[in-house]
Structures are given as structure tokens and as C-alpha cells.
């Protein structure tokens, strides 16, 4: 049975995660991730100031100050960047710390003044347990409005994020649009930092989109993955933080999100680190097998492998070699064909390097050693035609005909 308290906490986390991940998509796609981070810290003094002045938490003043102070911070970043030519990330760093310090100063004075804090001290780390019903209502309203805006302005969003100059030329009011998006992000962050905290709100803004982008370059899938992963992590974190004492919900959400993402970074069929490693291993194995086959093909070669190494095992398994009377191995009929295919590519390439690129006969072998594994059958066919189907390579070794 879910207690009422737990229900509120989980609802709050879920709404915050949904809102942040959705808002984060334009922020991430416009490459404003760092500005998102700055914003989450820069609104801190605004929120403290609002509590100080109004004497209550989460009044409309909190949101107003959050948006105003956040917009001011972004404006400052832009001005510093334009006026001094300090790179944007540098300017962002400066403004972020400046605003955050001012917030800390306000906070110190506020604590000594005796005004009730109303949970504003949790702005740093967040604490879902202090959630008030009014917070939830605010989050719910923002979620609905955010979803409608996101859906309605999707054309604007992709156009401006992909190519802002072209957007401007197409008549998209770029400055107004940018200002609005920043103000909206500040508003969402003001609403969520009390649950997740400043640092973690910024993380929840960016991480889901980054995961979505890693897994898919399809816009719809990207949105789906971002939002679903964020919501899943938030609900799990809500449950855990409610049942285990002294667990920060925000930190837990972000860590869970990473844990959710981690298997994909490893096992994604195309981009996963592990899968890439396996593919490389396989490719290296193929090269080794092809080289071993060539050794068996050449009867003059006395350096035959005798040990039962992995390559020999694979060749035996694929019936490319078979045991002979001397207690060693020899090529099977199938193996002869395969070896001829590789030798043919090697010698054709040598002929090309020597005859066409005029590379001396004694320096063509090493390059051909690489190319014999890379040339596909189509390229090999064309190469042979291009060279008038030669019968022998520059070293006068016969080129096996194509079968």
C-alpha cells in the first residue's frame, strides 16, 4: 500500500523529471547545455530573495524572481562574451559562480534574520520530502503547458536548433524565441530545484537528451527515450529515498539514470563500447585466419603452424583445413578455394601497385598484405579487368584464376 506521503513524493519527482527532460531537449539540441547548468545556479539568489521579501515559499514572486535573475545571468554571459571576446564557456563559468556566491550571501543573511526559511536551504541539494501540495500543482500546470508548447512549436524547435542562421533568414523571430526559451527554462528550473536541487536539476535537464541522442538520431525516438528514461529513474528514486533514510532523491535520480544508460553505452549494437570491441576482435581473427590459410596454401612454406592455436581451431571448425598423414594439417578442398581467393587479391594488388603506381617490385608486398583483407569481391573483379586479367604478379608468381 502506497502511503499518501510517498504518493506525493513520487508524483513530484515524476513531474519534475518529465518537465526537465522535455525542456532539456531544446537546450541540449541548441548546444546550450552549459547555459542550462549556469541557469540552475544563477536563479538561486532570485529564489532566496523572493522568500526573504515575501516571507513565504513558492509564491508567484519566487517564479518571477527566478525567471528575472536567470534571464539577467544569461544576458550577462552573452554581453561578456560579445564585449570582451572571452569564450562563451569562460563567460558562463564566471557568471555562474558570481550569481551563486550572491545567493550564498543572501542565504547567510536570511538565516540570521529569523525569517522562516520555507525549505529554501534545500535549493542546493533538494529534498523531495519537503514538497508542498502547492509545489505539485505548479509542477503539474507547467507540465501541461510545457507539453502543449513543445508539441505546437516543434517545427520552430528543430529548425532553430539545427540551423539558427537559416531560421533567422526564414523569418523566425530568433531573438524573441531565444529569450522565451531561456525564460521558460529558468521557470522550470525554479520549480524543480527545490525537489532535486540545483546541480541535479541541471543534470536532469541534459542527461536524458544526451542518452536519447546516443541511442537514436530519430527525433521521435530521441524524445521518447529522453522522457521515459528520466521518468523511470525519478519514480525508482522516489521509492528508494522514501524507504531508505537519509537518501537524497535528486542524487539518486541522476545515479539511477546513469545506471539505466550504462548498459546501452556497453551493449548498443552499433555504438556500444563492448560491441565495438567484439567487432574489432572478430575482424582481427578474420585477418589471422586468412593469413594462416595462405601459409597452408604455399607448399614451399615450412613455417607451418603446428600448435592448436585459436586460428587453427576456427579453421578446423569451419572445415577449411583437415588433418593429414604427417600429424599436421592441410587445406581441405573448400580451404583451397578460400586460400586462392586471398592469394588472388594479394597478387592482383601487387600487380596494380607495381604496374600502375610504379612502386618498385620489392616494396609492394607489405601494402598487399593489408589490402588482401580489405578488397571486396566486386573491387577485386574490377581491379582484375582494369589490369587486363594478368596471369602473374610482379614476382612472377601465378595469380589464381577466379572460380
Amino acid at each position, binding site marked *: 500500500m502506497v502511503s499518501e506521503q510517498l504518493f506525493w513524493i513520487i508524483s513530484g519527482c515524476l513531474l519534475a523529471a518529465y518537465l526537465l527532460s522535455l525542456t532539456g531537449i531544446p537546450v541540449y*539540441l541548441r548546444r546550450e547545455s552549459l547555459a542550462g547548468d549556469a541557469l540552475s545556479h544563477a536563479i538561486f539568489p532570485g529564489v532566496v530573495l523572493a522568500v526573504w521579501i515575501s516571507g513565504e515559499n513558492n509564491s508567484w514572486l519566487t517564479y518571477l524572481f527566478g525567471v528575472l535573475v536567470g534571464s539577467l545571468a544569461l544576458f550577462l554571459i552573452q554581453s561578456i562574451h560579445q564585449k570582451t571576446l572571452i569564450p562563451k564557456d569562460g563567460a558562463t563559468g564566471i557568471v555562474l559562480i558570481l550569481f551563486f556566491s550572491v545567493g550564498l550571501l543572501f542565504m547567510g543573511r536570511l538565516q540570521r534574520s529569523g525569517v522562516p526559511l520555507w525549505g529554501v536551504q534545500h535549493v542546493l541539494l533538494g529534498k523531495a520530502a519537503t514538497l508542498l501540495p502547492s509545489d505539485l500543482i505548479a509542477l503539474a500546470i507547467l507540465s501541461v503547458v510545457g507539453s502543449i508548447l513543445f508539441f505546437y512549436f516543434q517545427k520552430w524547435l528543430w529548425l532553430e536548433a539545427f540551423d539558427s*542562421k537559416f*531560421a533567422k*533568414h526564414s*523569418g523566425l523571430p530568433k531573438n524573441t524565441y531565444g529569450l522565451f526559451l531561456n525564460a521558460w527554462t529558468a521557470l522550470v528550473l525554479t520549480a524543480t530545484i527545490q525537489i532535486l536541487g540545483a546541480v541535479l536539476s541541471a543534470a536532469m535537464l541534459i542527461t536524458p537528451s544526451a542518452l536519447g541522442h546516443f541511442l537514436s538520431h*530519430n527525433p521521435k525516438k530521441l524524445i521518447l527515450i529522453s522522457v521515459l528514461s528520466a521518468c523511470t529513474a525519478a519514480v525508482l528514486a522516489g521509492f528508494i529515498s522514501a524507504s531508505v533514510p537519509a537518501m537524497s532523491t535528486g542524487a539518486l535520480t541522476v545515479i539511477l539514470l546513469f545506471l539505466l544508460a550504462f548498459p546501452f553505452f556497453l551493449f548498443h549494437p552499433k555504438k556500444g563500447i563492448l560491441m565495438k570491441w567484439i567487432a574489432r576482435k572478430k575482424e582481427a581473427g578474420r585477418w589471422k585466419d586468412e593469413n594462416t590459410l595462405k601459409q597452408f596454401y604455399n607448399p614451399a612454406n615450412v613455417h607451418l603452424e603446428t600448435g592448436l592455436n585459436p586460428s587453427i581451431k576456427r579453421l578446423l571448425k569451419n572445415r577449411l583445413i583437415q588433418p593429414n598423414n604427417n600429424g599436421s594439417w592441410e587445406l581441405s578442398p573448400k580451404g583451397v578455394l578460400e586460400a586462392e581467393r586471398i592469394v588472388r587479391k594479394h597478387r592482383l594488388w601487387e600487380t596494380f601497385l607495381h604496374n600502375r603506381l610504379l612502386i618498385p617490385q620489392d616494396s609492394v608486398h607489405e601494402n598487399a598484405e593489408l589490402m588482401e583483407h580489405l578488397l571486396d569481391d566486386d573491387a577485386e573483379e574490377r581491379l582484375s579487368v582494369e589490369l587486363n586479367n594478368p596471369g602473374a604478379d610482379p614476382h612472377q608468381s601465378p595469380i589464381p584464376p577466379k572460380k
Partner: protein
Amino acid sequence: MIEVKNLNAGYGKRSALWNIDFSIPLPAFIGIIGPNGGGKSTLLKSILGEITPFTGSIQVFGKPIGEVRERLAYVPQINSVDWNFPIRVMDVVLMGRFRPHSWGPFYSKSDREKAEFYLNAVGMFEFSKRQVGELSGGQRQRVFLARALAREADLLLLDEPLAGVDAGSGERILAVLSNYQKQGRSILMVHHDLLTASTLFDHLILLQTRLVAAGPIKDVFTLNNLQTAYGTDVSILSEMIHKLGQTPAKISDHP
């Protein structure tokens, strides 16, 4: 009418264009030619409003560029955007159909048809569902061209649209441009190949940091003017003299 008066423009404190004055009636198919560093791209960027001129004024359709921006279309350099962006080829071309007052989340059916038409025109239709990141440089260039064409703007500005495009696609693109222009629209295009320039355009602007000549091609494309612009660049000139010898009908003998 495209009208440039006393234009001085450049980057930082360095001037790339000096005292440019010309006017060319529209519609027209205008080529901007001249040696490297002659200010071809700078002129294009000034007309687009991407750089602010030091002095002078530019008017297109009788108005400053700021007021006619929506009647212009251009093809940016392909490295000006992040091609890892999560978007498909068709979505990029559809962007050409964006209008500030077309509210609502989706592009219309006729927008889609136009986008398909121009995607086909540049020979990229079969790629319409591909992610843009999977395309080669030449293919990206063609997608951007299709997007600009899909705007069906009154004036299309292009900066060497054939750079990095293979010969076959190049011919196809030139045919598309010719057709586009024949429908009463104008094209202003930076071009470096003098051989194709001599037959492609009806008006030329010949730049060598200063204006050498601007106007109808028969007045501009003369050996005298080309010598002024390209100076002692023997390879290009000998090529051109060869060309002048071959097709005297297209070249006027007098400057």
C-alpha cells in the same frame, strides 16, 4: 533590381571590397566571378546581411535587406551546422518551407510535395528518410541546395554550389538552377569556373577587391576585363583565350 552603392566591406579592420557600385535589373541569373581573395563571398555575405558593411548601402527589390529577408534564400557552408544532429534528410528540406506565420506543429501536404520535388531535382530523393549524419559532403551540399530551392524565394544566393560535387551531380544541379531561373526567379551565385560561367549566366559581376565590371554578360565577359581581374594569372587566361577562340559568338570583342 539589386542595387549596391559605394560599398566598402570586410572583416575586422581589413577591407575586402572597395567602393563597389552597380545595379542589375531582376529577374536575372547573375554570376559573381573573380580571382581568389577578390571579395566574391564578401559581396554575397553583405547582400545577405551576414556582415555589416563599413560604408554604403545595398537594396534588393527596392528595399534594404532587413525588410526583404524572407524573399531571399541562401545555401550556407555545409560545415556551419552539426551533422550529428538528430534529423532526417526530408526534415531538413522541409525547413525550406518554413514561414513565420505558418503556425501549427506540422508542415502542410503541399509543403511536403514541394520538398519532395526539389529533393528529387538534386538527385537525393532516395535518401529522404536517411539521417543527415550518414551523408557524404557532396550529398549534404545537395540537401542544403534542395532546402534553399524549396523556399521558392524570389532571389536565391549561392556560394559555389558545385564545390565538392562530382561532375554528374554538378551538371544536374546547373540544369535545376537554369530551370528555377526560367520561372521568373533570380539567382546570384559565386562561381569560380570561367568556362561554365561564360554560358550559364546572363549577368556577371567581376570583382578584384574593386569592381572590374558588372552588367549583361556580353559587356562584362571580355578579354580586357578578365585580364584586369586575373592579371598575370597565366593558366586561367590561357584557358580563357582558348575558350574565346573556340566560341567567339558568345564573347564580345570590345570591352
